[in-house]
């Protein structure tokens, strides 16, 4: 099992193999996205029972929570890819890390916007300087910094390595930032889904889990798609790319 995973990991390091394999995976992933996201969102936005105190306004949770989860997960993934870039100099990791930044930033932005829309009926204002909102905003700033650095350096490889350093530094700082912002001000409710017990109704929970799964598949589809474009662009001089795009 471990050997097979290791072999897969090494194979994935080759842009050609990555391109071919993700090409086969993509339709399945798109199907999974549609199957999870469409029923989840329709049920969540229209049929799930309204919440006791917030009524219907809570329904934005089905977009807000998945986006928040991906926003954080994406940054961590970028930092892990950064470690791979710095330690093993793997070209694929460079491309994945580069493509992750704008996608992660978009999900962070979606999370902030939906949170603000949710805040209006619940807290009465569009924005509060609450700990979670603020740390999400800081996360967006971190993403913006990574993207700015990446686009400022012309050489693709040194851009990737510089970005890797920055995203690792950011990932080390992220818990500290989150902790200090928490300490600074707390208004947001603590997390309601925990591994062992859950404070929300099972019907809502399954809808939410389906939406989270669907959003993750969507994230994978977006990431794979943009990484495939990046692969074609970076490897444009190699024969297999010329053959793939029919330029030979």
């Amino acid at each position, binding site marked *: 099992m471990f050997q097979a995973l290791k072999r897969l990991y090494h194979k994935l390091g080759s842009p050609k193999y990555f391109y071919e394999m993700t090409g086969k995976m993509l339709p399945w992933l798109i199907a999974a996205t549609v199957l999870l996201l469409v029923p989840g969102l329709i049920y969540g936005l229209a049929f799930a029972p309204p919440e006791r105190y917030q009524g219907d306004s809570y329904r934005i949770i089905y977009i807000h929570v998945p986006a928040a989860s991906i926003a954080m997960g994406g940054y961590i993934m970028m930092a892990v890819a950064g470690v791979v870039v*710095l330690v093993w100099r793997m070209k694929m990791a460079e491309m994945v890390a580069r493509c992750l930044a704008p996608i992660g930033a978009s999900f962070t932005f979606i999370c902030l916007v939906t949170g603000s829309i949710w805040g209006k009926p619940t807290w009465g204002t569009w924005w509060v300087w609450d700990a979670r909102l603020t740390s999400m905003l*800081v996360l967006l*700033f*971190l993403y*913006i*910094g990574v993207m*700015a*650095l990446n686009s*400022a*350096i012309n*050489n693709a490889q*040194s851009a990737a*390595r*510089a970005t890797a*350093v*920055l995203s*690792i*530094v*950011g990932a*080390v*700082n992220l818990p*500290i*930032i989150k*902790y*200090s*912002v928490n*300490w*600074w001000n707390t208004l947001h409710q603590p997390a309601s889904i925990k591994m062992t017990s859950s404070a929300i109704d099972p019907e809502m929970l399954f809808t939410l889990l389906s939406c989270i799964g669907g959003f993750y598949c969507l994230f994978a589809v977006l990431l794979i798609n943009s990484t495939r474009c990046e692969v074609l662009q970076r490897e444009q001089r190699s024969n297999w790319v010329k053959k793939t795009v029919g330029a030979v």
Partner: protein
Amino acid sequence: MANQLEPAMWSGMLAIIKRDIVIAFRQRGDMVNPLFFFIMVIALFPLGMGPEPGTLQKIAPGVIWIAALLSTLLSVDSLFRQDFDDGALELTLMSPQPLFVLAFGKVLAHWLVTALPLICVAPVLGVMMFMDVNTIKVTLYSLLLGTPVLSMISAIGAALTVGLHKGGVLVAVIALPLYIPVLIFGTSAVEAAAMGHPFAGQLAYLAAFLILAFTFAPFAIATGLRISVNG
């Protein structure tokens, strides 16, 4: 061999610190400008928000900290730039001493010539912002503990961007989000002191950040420098 290298490591760092301080004293503009910037930014706040002592007293901790943060950010651009342009940075990279030790020395020297003067004038500005003696004392402590962290963080940004000839704003975008913990604990220590609450906890957090930054940042700076120079 090992006991021969060890003293050379420290003497290498000390040599870098000495060299950078000498250079700073020969080009006083680089040293004095951040200080004047700090004073001017703080002087703008009473002009912008009105000279009423109550308001000024209330915003003083934040104003002093943000001004310190901005002047660190402005001055850090010159940290590696000159060495990069005249080739001294490449020699530093090739020297037998570990790069992170030398990078640490460079940042320390930079802190001594740009941040320390700023901390020295902070009490005067505190008086102009109607802070009381105890609060000014805590401001000094928090700046002493916090500004080296800011220097370390912005040095990472400077190291990553030194090869590009458009550093300035880019360093700010990279480094500002990372400043937030220092800003939060720095201002809240001063605010707690102003309200007569205990402030040792916040200072302890700043000291913890300082230790963390001193331990890990030099490695990031060294890696950044290698990437910037080797392309």
